[in-house]
């Protein structure tokens, strides 16, 4: 059926034809032939849709997507079949992206507060007033040498914003995307001088998954989920998941091993011990590529018997032994590390323990193992041009409350797509801090919606969504080929007639100027550029761009590889670019002893840790308070559902499916406590209390309770609050789940704990008490 179909003429006419055709020449082997000629068709008029390839930015995965326009209206988003990472697949929130753009409750105009803070009374202002207010404040702070009084809280990275921050020299930056990964980044940087490694799961045969849930959320979500599924179903790979609850990934693994929270380290060490003692370790790799000989490791591991691990973690000693042997013999194998491992006070050491498994099988830069990220190079041969937060480790501030603790003098607090009053652990403290005019004299929030944080702001600025602006970024190189992602605006204010007259993508140039964010919303980049113009001087000099498009054009022209392949035009037609010269991808460590291209050695033994008074070898660190727990005490875990994410809070389609986050409680345990499915309980932690209904389930460890995060909003919009209302979208009057409610916000009861070595957030360590109401 794939061969018959549309005529050549029609194919070209649809615009995306060009994209697909161009993509053929790049062609990665995995793209199924049938998927190549993608286009859209209007359900009602049967006319071809206008298709524009761009990049999804709802999560760090950066999938290639195609936006379909019917006349001027954005009607659908589907995956870009040519994109090497997601290969046409797309996740639910990516699909629901049009809910974000077309949301009738979006913030579309700049406003300033007229009542007291938090009173939700506003008056509209002009952007000129915004520029003036912000420009003057920043200018004065620079002039008085107190630019440190500007706090920038960014929920999303933007390279122009980063340039601006650097140019004005502000130091108090809260980098939300990096915060959560801080522990992992620190751990890996200490071992391999790179904050992250990618997992070549598509080519592995044995995959141990510790606390990651790539079937529902992950830094490389769809890209990795797709590869895992293929490896497992089509190539017979085995996937083994350790998680405190049965995640979607665990449900679709060959086996699930419920593990007591934060004990992953000891399980990994016991496995390591089995591997070493059965002499299954890759001696060659350990000798040549690491700083720790096997004898030393063997000695270090001697106390970690599978039996001890079983007592600590609940994972059976026989399973540990069997899986260890399988991991070391059924190669290629890889152990992957998720937030379940890193989000604990012993996160850094746990990560090191699991990483040790990888070093023992010597899978670094080998097929089916781990590999370093690859970035498109600029003409200086440096990847740094595309500032990637994942490479950046300067995290000055770790959350709003730290500002209070270190008694920071604040003049202006600027939050961009960040919602600390909702998302911070112990969020009510953060909210109190932000609401206090003495601590935070001037609060500016730039967001797509009136978030919990925005409700307390002095000034709110409407942000353009990711579908309404320009940016360029390097996508995760899941096949070791550097990828450049272009994000271009797809929200058009064109008349239908005009688009129909020029339906091919090639004439996109003609149409460009009419793509524009809705209302008066603006891209953060354009805000920064305008502020730079008002501030002038060296700030302006380091931001010599007209607008975001100009910036993106100039940046891409500095990449020689891209220039040779058609430059910006190609990028726009495809939505992404892969370095053709590096098409095949390569492994630094091809496996043969002599040909290793790896120069640096893996530091299994860390001098840095030693210097700072921490154990230098991977070690398991138990936590006393978790050992002695009463029968109604649990470790509280949150998880990210695939239906919650930044930008999806007010999405009608996502909220229709998931609007309640019941507390998962182990069924047997609940029976003993006299709690039935659907009962209301009070969940009490040292910082707060929440009331929720219970889901009794056989899919969670008896010592843990779990809850999806991302629900229970008290601001943002009526959809997020599960309220039916009338708007120009008829659907909002059909909201049917008001009775079931909108869930609860778990951050109210999460303690602000950190891993003391990395400073990363330990979001999954709060001990809670459960009382039936």
């Amino acid at each position, binding site marked *: 059926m794939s061969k018959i179909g549309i005529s050549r003429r029609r194919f070209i006419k649809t615009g995306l034809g060009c994209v697909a055709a161009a993509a053929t020449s790049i062609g990665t082997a995995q793209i199924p032939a049938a998927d190549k000629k993608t286009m859209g068709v209007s359900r009602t008029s049967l006319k071809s849709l206008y298709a524009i390839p761009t990049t999804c930015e709802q999560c760090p995965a950066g999938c290639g997507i195609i936006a379909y326009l019917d006349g001027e209206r954005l009607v659908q988003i589907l995956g870009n079949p040519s994109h090497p990472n997601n290969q046409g697949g797309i996740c639910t929130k990516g699909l629901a992206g049009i809910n974000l753009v077309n949301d009738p409750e979006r913030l579309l105009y700049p406003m300033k507060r007229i009542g007291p803070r938090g009173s939700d009374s506003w008056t509209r202002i002009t952007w000129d007033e915004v520029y003036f207010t912000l420009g003057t404040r920043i200018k004065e702070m620079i002039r008085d040498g107190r630019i440190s009084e500007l706090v920038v809280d960014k929920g999303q990275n933007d390279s122009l914003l980063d340039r601006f921050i650097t140019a004005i020299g502000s130091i108090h930056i809260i980098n939300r995307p990096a915060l959560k990964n801080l522990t992992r980044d620190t751990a890996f940087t200490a071992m391999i001088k790179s904050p992250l490694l990618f997992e070549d799961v598509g080519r592995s045969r044995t995959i141990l998954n510790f606390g990651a849930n790539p079937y529902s959320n992950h830094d490389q979500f769809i890209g990795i989920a797709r590869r895992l599924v293929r490896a497992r179903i089509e190539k017979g790979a085995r996937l083994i998941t350790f998680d405190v609850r049965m995640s979607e990934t665990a449900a679709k693994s060959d086996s699930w091993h419920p593990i007591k929270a934060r004990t992953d380290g000891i399980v990994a060490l016991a496995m390591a011990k089995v591997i070493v003692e059965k002499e299954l370790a890759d001696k060659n790799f350990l000798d040549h590529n690491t700083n720790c000989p096997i004898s030393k490791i063997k000695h270090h591991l001697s106390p970690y018997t599978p039996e001890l691990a079983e007592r600590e973690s609940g994972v059976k000693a026989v399973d540990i032994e069997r899986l260890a042997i399988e991991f070391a013999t059924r190669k290629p194998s890889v152990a992957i590390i998720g937030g379940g491992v890193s989000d604990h006070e012993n996160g850094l050491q746990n990560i090191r323990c699991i990483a040790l498994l990888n070093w023992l099988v010597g899978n670094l830069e080998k097929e089916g193992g781990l590999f370093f990220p690859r970035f498109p190079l600029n003409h200086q041969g440096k990847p740094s041009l595309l500032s990637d937060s994942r490479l950046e480790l300067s995290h000055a501030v770790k959350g709003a409350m730290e500002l209070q603790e270190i008694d920071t003098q604040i003049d202006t607090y600027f939050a961009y797509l960040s919602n600390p009053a909702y998302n911070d652990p112990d969020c009510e403290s953060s909210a109190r801090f932000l609401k206090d005019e003495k601590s935070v004299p001037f609060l500016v929030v730039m967001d797509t919606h009136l978030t919990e944080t925005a409700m307390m702001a002095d000034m709110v600025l409407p942000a353009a969504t990711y579908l309404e602006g320009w940016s360029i970024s390097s996508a995760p190189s899941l096949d070791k080929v550097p990828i450049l992602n272009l994000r271009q605006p797809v929200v058009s204010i064109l008349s239908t007639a005009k688009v129909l007259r020029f339906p091919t993508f090639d004439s996109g140039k003609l149409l460009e100027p009419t793509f524009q964010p809705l209302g008066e919303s603006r891209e953060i980049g354009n805000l920064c550029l305008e502020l730079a113009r008002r501030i002038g001087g060296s700030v302006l000099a380091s931001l010599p761009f007209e607008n975001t498009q100009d910036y993106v054009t100039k940046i891409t022209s500095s990449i020689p590889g891209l220039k040779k392949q058609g430059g910006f035009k190609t990028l726009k037609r495809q939505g992404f670019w892969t370095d053709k010269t590096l098409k095949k991808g390569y492994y630094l460590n091809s496996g043969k002893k002599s040909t290793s291209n790896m120069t640096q050695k893996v530091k299994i033994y860390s001098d840095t840790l030693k210097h700072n008074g921490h154990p230098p070898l991977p070690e398991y660190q138990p936590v006393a308070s978790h050992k002695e727990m009463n029968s109604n005490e649990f470790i509280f875990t949150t998880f990210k559902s695939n239906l919650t994410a930044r930008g999806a809070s007010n999405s009608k389609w996502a909220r229709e*499916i998931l609007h309640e986050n019941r507390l998962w409680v182990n069924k047997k345990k609940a029976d003993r406590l006299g709690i039935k*499915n659907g009962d209301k309980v009070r969940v009490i932690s040292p910082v707060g209390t929440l009331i929720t209904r219970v*889901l009794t*389930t056989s899919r969670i460890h008896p010592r843990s309770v779990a809850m999806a995060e991302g629900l229970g909003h008290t601001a943002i919009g009526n959809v997020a609050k599960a309220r039916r209302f009338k708007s120009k979208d008829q659907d909002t009057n059909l909201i*049917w789940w008001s009775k079931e409610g909108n869930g609860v916000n778990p951050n109210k009861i999460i303690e602000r704990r950190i891993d003391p070595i990395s400073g990363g957030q330990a979001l999954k360590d709060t001990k809670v008490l459960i009382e039936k109401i």
Partner: protein
Amino acid sequence: MDTQVIYNIIHQEAFGLNIAIYFYLTGLSAGSFILSTLAFGFGMKQYKPLGKVGVVLATMLLIIAPFFLLIHIGMPYRAWNLFVYLNFASPITWGTFLLVLYPINCLIYGYFMFKGNMRLTRIFGFIGIPLAISVHGYTGFILAFGKARALWNTALMPILFLVSAIVSGIALMILVCIIKDRFFSKEKKIDLTLIFNLGKLLAWMIIFDLFLVGSDLIVLSISHSDAQAVAHLLLLGKFSPLFLIVENLLGKIVPFILLVVPKFRRLTTIVVASILVVIGIFFMRYVVVVGGEFIPLI
């Protein structure tokens, strides 16, 4: 295996209360009509006074009934499509014809009856009987075609519907006759023999009805798992109060006792029994239609 549904969607109700009412009214109509023809069609003299009441009732009820269909359907303005596009495989299409022919026949039959033309009354009475049976029988087929709903998908459904139609028809007739005699007749005197005869008839029909319901239940409770689930729903589950107590105990067994125990042979008991039956059969329709949809298909 122990299972627990973690996520599923909520399904819309397909038929619901409106259809239950519709079935109820057509049932009453068919029952009344059949009684009416007893005298004129079959020459059972003792039922002669029923003739006119019956036909008036049958016609009126059948004119009201389709309004519930119109409320039920999403596109009432398109109801004419039913006459333009025909699908003879669909019981609703059968109904389209029946719902036109049957009231027309009622009118003609009634016209001749009031005119006193016994021959033509008899002829149209005979034509009317299969129509009346079909009008109610077809509603049984509507449900029986719901192949995944265990409570509906039985060949007993049309006959069960018919018998319960007659049961409710007789009960209604008793009540109407009493009211008519008491308030609107010249003598203001109730024809007790007629009422007691009807009461006897009613009692026998109730027995037949109970037999059918019982047969249905017995088979349901040993049949496939969905059927067993329905049997459970009716006997022990959410619908058991309506089914056991309202429909069968109060709606059939109590009236039956009131009607057959000679000690109770009084006008008031007959009135009470008839009222109970009329209400009971309504709940029978409700339990069948709504209860049949209660268990999700998937």
